[in-house]
């Protein structure tokens, strides 16, 4: 990547790190929420469903602003987290939080659909064989939804790689801390003649995201055929 400047390289690395962690940390939560939405009937289920979809529907700037208000230094959750020594404001962790939240609906949808495709009768069979609910989940449901989980995770990763609006509004753009690839692209597009540099970065993100998607299709199919039996 000799044709990338050091700052661009840094943005690329940061984007990868942010997207990776955003995906990794939201994945268990996404699986849990997807499971709850698919299998449990509880009051507020539709509210939860709506909340999950919110980042998909809101303009990203609004999401970023809401994050700023709640997770910022002065925000209630931001202060709470700070008590535990976790600061997200103006850190790459905040960028990961923003990316994770923006990608969350995509992840949950993918996983939820694959959970709905699992025959509850197999889960019942697991229960009669002595596995408690969490164990049934771990030994029956989870292995069977693995293709969906992988698809969801990689889709979320790809989305996180492209997230911009909420991220810059929430954690702004601090080179080395929160300057992700899309922020850099945006900056180049603001000045006359910046198109070439922007294009270079866009191509890089497309390559990475497409690679991830192809990988997910491939893994998904392999795992699916393993799960369905060969």
């Amino acid at each position, binding site marked *: 990547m000799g044709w990338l400047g050091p700052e661009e390289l840094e943005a690329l690395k940061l984007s990868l790190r942010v997207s990776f962690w955003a995906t990794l940390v939201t994945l268990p939560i996404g699986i849990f929420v997807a499971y709850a939405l698919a299998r449990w009937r509880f009051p507020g289920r539709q509210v939860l469903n709506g909340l999950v979809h919110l980042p998909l529907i809101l303009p990203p700037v609004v999401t970023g*602003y809401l994050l*700023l*208000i709640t997770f*910022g*230094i*002065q*925000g209630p959750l931001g202060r709470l987290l700070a008590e535990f020594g976790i600061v997200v*404001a*103006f850190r790459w962790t905040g960028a990961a939080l923003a990316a994770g939240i923006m990608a969350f609906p995509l992840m949950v949808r993918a996983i939820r659909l694959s959970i709905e495709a699992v025959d509850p009768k197999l889960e019942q069979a697991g229960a009669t064989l002595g596995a408690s609910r969490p164990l049934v989940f771990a030994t029956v449901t989870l292995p069977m939804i693995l293709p969906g989980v992988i698809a969801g995770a990689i889709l979320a990763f790809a989305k996180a790689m492209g997230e911009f609006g909420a991220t*810059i*509004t929430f*954690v*702004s*753009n*601090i080179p080395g801390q*929160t*300057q992700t690839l899309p*922020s850099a692209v*945006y*900056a*180049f*597009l*603001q*000045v*006359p003649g*910046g198109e070439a540099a922007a294009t270079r970065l866009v191509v890089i993100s497309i390559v990475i995201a497409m690679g991830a998607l192809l990988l997910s299709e491939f893994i998904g199919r392999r795992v699916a055929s393993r799960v369905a039996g060969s």
Partner: protein
Amino acid sequence: QGPLRADAEGVLVFAAASLKTALDEIAPAFEQQSGQEVTISYAASSVLARQIQLGAPADLFISANADWMDVLQEQGLIDEASRVDLLGNGLVLIAGGDAITIGEMRPDVDLQAALDGGHLAMALVDAVPAGIYGKAALQSLGQWSRVQNQVAQTDNVRAALALVATGAAPLGIVYRSDAAVEDRVQVVATFSPDLHPPIIYPAAATVPASAGAKAFLAHLNSEAARVVFAEQGFALPGG
């Protein structure tokens, strides 16, 4: 029938988004006087300039910086004769809540100490005009290298204002016009205009502009309009 025209009826203005409050107040008066309908599309200057480059049917372009106007002028997309420096602006250092006002920014003010580990909110320092000017001013003051790593850059100057207003950042550098209307922030210091390139909002009619475009441009220079701009904290060229 869409705005793919430059007809006598109506004026389509492409204006930097930071002018929204002022222009929304000024335009109705002109519409009443002239009977012409004024439609204003607010977006980032870069977005609007690109759209004009690619054939947007705008009659009038008001940019938040000179660079994009220069580009359009070089490409012959605007009527050079009509170009005026419509407005100016100044930079201020703002803080949230109650802060002491120190008047004009001086090199010896310890900005880094004032930040106390927090961040200095600015627009993108290499891309967005307010950020570019701010960086230049800090460089002139010899402060840039000291605070450089604590600058939180936003995609537009309003977002920088929001960082300070919500308390996310203790200090920020924004336009005077932005600071004027936000109650939650206070101007701590002003930056002298000679610390940075002149902040200018150039305006010009496009090449195929409608007849009303120039009339509206003239109206923007009228006394009534100038009062509104001044109220919003804009500087007036020569004024």
